[in-house]
Structures are given as C-alpha cells and as structure tokens.
C-alpha cells in the first residue's frame, strides 16, 4: 500500500499554496522602513536594512500588462499589481483572448512537475476572477 506524497511548492519561500485564510498567496518581505519586495529579500532595496519579515501578499490582484511566452504552447505571462503596492510576474491560466489589462485575478497553486520521489511540485499562477454580469 502506498500513500501519495503531499504536493509542495517547487521552491520554498516564494508562495504558500494555503495561507492563513486557506488560499494561495505569494510571499513578500516587509522592511521596518515599510518597503515590500517580491520575491522576499534579506536586505532591503530601499534602505539596505536587515530588519525584514515575510508576509502574505493579498490573494487577488489586477493585471497591469501581459504578453505571451515563446514555445509550442502559447502561454500568457502577466505583471499583476497588488493592493500592497507590489507587482509580480507569473503565468495566467487563461487563453490570450480572455485576458485584458485591468482584469482581477486570484493567486492559485498549480502542479507543474514531480520530484524524484513522485511528490507533485507546485508553482503559483494567476486565475481570472469571474466578474458579476
């Protein structure tokens, strides 16, 4: 009898698949001076200070701009702006025709690979939020 290993992020410290509210969140650093950064930094870009804590970025953000990545499968890559002032880049789980600047998206965890022991590895991605008609 085998137990399927639990999925985990491809790289630790970039995002959490289930944060304090059960939703996926990017992880950013916040410096004592107030500056936030994604991915999290050990030394602040604004003041060079080292008094930084890791915190969750809001689950939802807004598409600032987008393009497509090269390769056989066309994939949308977007810059997403969050209410805490951060901008992060990542894949969007939608076809180009369904993506637009200003669109609300939520952060989700998606399986992208397997570790040698069969553990599913997760990345984050952005999923368009259904808007009320």
């Amino acid at each position: 009898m085998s137990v399927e290993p639990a999925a985990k992020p491809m790289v630790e410290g970039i995002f959490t698949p289930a944060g304090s509210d059960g939703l996926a969140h990017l992880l950013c650093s916040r410096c004592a001076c107030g500056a936030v950064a994604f991915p999290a930094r050990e030394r602040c870009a604004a003041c060079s200070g080292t008094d930084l804590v890791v915190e969750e970025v809001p689950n939802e953000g807004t598409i600032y701009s987008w393009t497509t990545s090269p390769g056989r499968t066309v994939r949308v890559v977007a810059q997403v702006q969050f209410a805490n002032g951060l901008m992060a880049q990542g894949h969007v789980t939608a076809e180009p025709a369904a993506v637009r600047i200003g669109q609300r998206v939520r952060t989700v965890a998606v399986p992208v690979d397997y570790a040698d022991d069969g553990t599913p590895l997760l990345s984050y991605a952005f999923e368009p939020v259904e808007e009320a008609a």
Partner: protein
Amino acid sequence: MAIVVGVGMVPFGRHPDKTVADLGTGAVLAALADAGLPWRAIEVMHCGAAGAGLTPGTRIGAQLGLTGIPITNIDNASASGSSAFRLACRDVDSGSVDIALAVGVGKFGRTLRLDGGVGAPEPGTAEYRERQIGAMQGPLPPAGLFAMRTRRRMYEFGSNLDQFAQVAVKNRKHAMLNPYAQMREPMTLEDVRNARVVADPLTVPHCCPVGDGGAAAIVVSERKARELGIAPAIRVIASAFRTPTLAGVMNAQDADTTVATVQAAYEQAGLGPRDIDLVQVHDAFTVEEIEYCESMGFCERGSGEAAVERGELSIGGRIPFSTDGGLLSRGHPLGPTGLAQVHETVLQLRGAAGQRQVEGARTGLVHMVGIGGVCLVHILQRE
C-alpha cells in the same frame, strides 16, 4: 574635456571569418586611421564586450602590438561600449594620460546564461534554484518585457501598434543611408504588421537583430588636441551614468533611470533638450525610442507616438533620433553598440554623414541602457 579625434567601425552584420579580437582590431585600426595616430601612441585602452569570453580587449591589444599599456575589459551588457567610452574620457579628464582608446566588440554565438554558466544549472545549486524561481515567474525573452511595456502604453494612452511599428520603419529608412548598418532592405508598415510574432503584440521588426561588429573611438586631452592641431574640436561635454534607485514599477524602470541619467548629463553640460540637435537612443525595441524620447524631455509623457507619426524623430524632423538606423536597423552586437552611436554622432557633428546628414548638427546626445538597469548618457558638441 575629452576631445574625440578618431572613430572607426567594422560594419555590423555577420562576420563568420572574424574572431571577436579580429573585429576589435578592425575597428581600432579604422579609428587610428581616422585620427592619424599610430597604435603605439595609445596610452590606455578600455574594451566593452558582453559575454564575449575572457579579456577580449587584451587579445585586441596583442594583435595590434604589445605596448604594455593598461587594458581594462568591461561587461555592462548593452552599455559595455558606452562604459568603455566613459572610462577613456575620464582617464583623459583626470590628466593621467593624453590619448585614450575605447573599443567595443560583439559576436553572436552561444547564448550565455546571466549567471555566467553554460547549459542547464546542476540541481541543488543556487543557480538551479534561481532558474526554478524564474520558471515560476514565467520566463520570457527580452522582447517579453517590452511587449508588456508596449501593451501598457496602448492601454494608458490609447496608442496603436502601428505607431510603434513606425519607429522600426523610420529607423530602417535611416539605416538604408548608412553603409555600416546591418539591416538595409526596404521595409514597410505592412512588412512589420505581417512579420512573425515574438511576444504578443510585438513582431520581429519591433526587435533589434543579433549580429557581429566592432566600433572604436579615440579621445585626447585639450593639450594634445592643440598639439595635433585638431579643429574644430568635438568635445565630450557630459558623461552621466546611473543605475536604478528603487525597484519601483518594474515596467518603467529603464525610463525612470533614463530620466535621472539624462538630467545629470544636462546639468553637467549646462544644456537642456532644446540645445540638442540629434539623439542616438537605446531602441532595442520600438517602444523604447518613444519612452526615452519623453524621458529626455523632447515631448510630454504620452505624446511620443504622435511625435514619431508626425516625423519629428526622422532626419529632417524636429529632433532626429537613431540617424544611423538605431539598434533596430544599424544593429546591436551588444559590446560595440554604444561606440557605434559615438561614431555616428561624430560623423554628424563633422558634417560628414552624407545622405543622412542632419543640417547644422552641433550637439548630439547618445544613450544606452544595459540589462539590469545600467544607463549611460554622453553629450558631444562641436566647437
């Protein structure tokens, strides 16, 4: 102030029969011939190259003759040649030498990783972790970031893609008049529209080509210029160099750094945009010429597209940009590009630019951006 007395180039394009050192030697010999100086008069050399192997400048020096002079190799990505030029000017300005040489070389070949490695990084290494983080963020070619900058401008200012394509068409027209340019086939707006998409919405002609080439410039002190009887002198009246201050909106970082660098250059020269007659800009992608034209104070934010459309940035227009074809059509072999800009500016200020001559050109600005946020601006002026 440093005075430019010689410029030389190996035309940009493909040179499979020449090594990186051969390309540099060709450019240096052309600059020496232009200045009427022998290699043995050069007191210091700076070589700009990006990912062109170890110490290309030292190999160029060895080809030209072992004179024992200091030779420094600089890798500042696209701004490597501009960085070499700045250091040559500063050596002369410091009074430590009277004659300094800057050379830039580049050759399209294997693609180097930004972390310096070749091939795929080994699992378990810091480089592998960086690669995986990059994969999560959605890895893009350089065109991807500029595609997003283009799309954002279209959203903010209501501009259309054809207006960006007009930059490529204009710079191709300029390149067709330049024997040193890589891309000299006629190109229409239709051609730009119908080309292959690199990163939505950008097609191939919105992006600069890869290629091989070399470019060099020789600068001398005021004292040496008098001794050589140089007249009229072309002086480097500003040399400004900035890196980003804060990772603000990642989409606009190069434009912000350009604002700070150009401002510093204007202050050094005691000039403003109204005093500039022509500009060579880092137009690796069409959106850049439009953005930086605004960053440099030649038009209001959001009006760059219209300025291009009205022909204001063409030869014969209000403020000609990329008179030699720019990175988009003169070409961009990384290392030599900043020195090709100096080459073009010096020809223009001498009134020796032939069919692409900007009438009455006296003051020219050159601008380069290197990946990671390096920005250099020089202003050259004929006395």
